[in-house]
């Protein structure tokens, strides 16, 4: 049924093939059903989303693109359960979360969603390990388990040697990897990354994309990544383009880029201390 919605929605150049509707439903992580978002600014109503229907399946790596004001950020806020749709429904792993209370949404964010932001958003003067522990604190995980899982997550992103470093002792790429570790430590249904490479130089961007591709490929983690850079979108498996509050295009990526291969072909950075932490 969700798949049909996708196909029936006019204006979508549906180039992806979700396979049989039943199978797709079983492995669907995100399903938006005619979602609208209307902001009231005084007397003026702003239609940020005008009936978005979108489905993301387990194991997908989706790049969300669009100009600013296209509605992609609003869509990500709704998918991240930071906001609620004004109209329409949102299913997260089959559960209708569009009408949940503030507290319930906090719990959903804690258990099922991992956020990675453009500005890293780590707690200052707090070690990498403690930053990664934070989501587990709010989940109520025991101290010993917290430490163990935080270490594992940091090792997974290649920061096993940087556990006790403060954010200001880490490079931008390392900080973003701490943020990724924090996002995946509660084993979420999906990682939402909002312009994760926006503050990084091109080489570090490739390194961060390498982490995402690794997690997606080896761990089967579902990722939705907002970007306005077409280059970065090429690392994903699928691209969804927003315009004027609607999905304009939705296509599978051809000639997908591999961050791993590109890194191997780049000249080694002589004074790059990150080499030792490489995956």
């Amino acid at each position: 049924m969700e798949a049909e919605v996708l196909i029936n929605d006019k204006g979508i150049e549906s180039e992806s093939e979700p396979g049989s509707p039943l199978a797709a439903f079983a492995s669907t992580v995100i399903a938006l059903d005619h979602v609208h978002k209307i902001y009231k600014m005084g007397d003026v109503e702003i239609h940020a989303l005008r009936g978005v229907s979108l489905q993301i399946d387990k194991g997908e790596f989706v790049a969300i693109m669009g100009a600013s004001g296209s509605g992609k950020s609003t869509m990500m806020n709704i998918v991240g359960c930071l906001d609620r749709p004004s109209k329409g429904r949102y299913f997260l792993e089959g559960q209708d979360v569009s009408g949940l209370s503030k507290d319930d949404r906090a719990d959903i964010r804690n258990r099922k969603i991992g956020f990675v932001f453009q500005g890293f958003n780590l707690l200052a003067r707090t070690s990498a390990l403690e930053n990664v522990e934070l989501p587990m604190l709010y989940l109520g995980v025991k101290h010993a388990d917290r430490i163990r899982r935080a270490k594992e997550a940091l090792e997974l992103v290649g920061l096993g040697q940087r556990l006790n470093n403060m954010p200001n002792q880490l490079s931008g790429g390392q900080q973003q990897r701490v943020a990724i570790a924090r996002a995946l430590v509660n084993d979420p249904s999906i990682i939402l990354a909002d312009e994760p490479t926006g503050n990084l130089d091109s080489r570090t961007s490739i390194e961060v994309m390498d982490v995402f591709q690794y997690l997606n490929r080896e761990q089967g983690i579902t990722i939705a990544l907002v970007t306005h850079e077409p280059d970065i979108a090429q690392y994903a498996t699928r691209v969804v383009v927003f315009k004027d509050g609607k999905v304009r295009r939705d296509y599978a990526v051809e000639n997908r880029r591999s961050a791993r291969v590109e890194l191997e072909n780049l000249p080694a950075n002589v004074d790059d201390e990150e080499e030792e932490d490489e995956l």
Partner: protein
Amino acid sequence: MNLWVTFKVALSALGRNKMRAALTMLGIIIGVGAVIAMVGVGQGASASIQQQIASLGNNMLYVWSGSQNQGGMRGGSGTAATFVPEDVDAIERECTAVKEASPAVQAGGQLVFGNQNWSPSGRIVGTNEKFPSIRAWPIASGEFFSDADVKTAARVCVLGKTVVDNLFEGADPVGQTIRVRNLPFRVLGVLSSKGQSSFGQDQDDTVIVPYTTEMKKLLSITHIQYAMVSAISPGATFLAQEQITDLLRQRHKLSANQDNDFTIRNLTDVADAANQSSSIMTNLLASIAGVALMVGGIGIMNIMLVSVTERTREIGIRMAIGARSRVIRRQFLIESITLSLVGGIIGVILGVAASIVIANTLKWPTLISPISIIVSVVFSGLVGVIFGYYPAVRAAALDPIDALRYE
């Protein structure tokens, strides 16, 4: 998420900005320190006033025989002949609020020793052996006369310091014999110096003899002029007064329409007035210090509000990764309570230290009561709750999307 974890989160959040935490606490530290020191000074003053009052006697009452007012003959207090030593025995025996009582008579007269003579302004006072205890007036040397001396109307006496100075000129009077109104009396002891009374009278210019001796051998009377009574506690003086009134009216067979033939003077009135003035002083000091504490609390609120604004992003991050609003509220509340409680405890330590310094350098008596310590610590905790609540609510009410976007 349990409270302990929130507590640790709050502590580590405070630990990230130690300088600010310390400065925020400073207001509370000064406030609580001032409360402790000021109340200490006030209570010390109050205690020393009470000590002075107590030196007047132990919760004392004077029962004066009434004025003679019969058949046109009128005289002052102590002239009526209705008050007898048996009344005083009865007062001591039957009034439950009375601890001790002594019959008392007094008369003027000359003392002679060798070629010196002296007429004490405090007169020749006759009492029983309980005088030192009732008046809280210990003996400095020798001893006070005994129960037996009273019973046998022995010619013995105890001298006040001024009398000794004037009659003996430095010689030891104990064991000597002086003439009191021309009768020889053996000196048993000397009273400790009590100085001036609150009315400016020299209390040491007196000689104490057994009341029986004075009644029979000096004055030849069978009634007493007054009685000294001590109540069992400061609060019991009014009860004692009532009980004595009832008893004496009954013993003197006074009908309901007759006036008392005695007057009771209660030294507690004086003590109350003094206590009241010292407690006004304590309250004044405490309220000034309380204002300081209040200012400290507002300081905490101010910093916490700034902190909420400054940490908007942190709050956004915490909310995005799953902290419920109430967890955020609790964290900020615990932060402010921790600041104010720790500040309060440091303040107590400083306040105690300050009052010790005041006691030693200014020679002011200070008294630190455990109650003022407990009250200040509890109050500083409350300051944390009250002034931390609004900032905490502000933090919890933030929208995570706006908070994350906040620059």
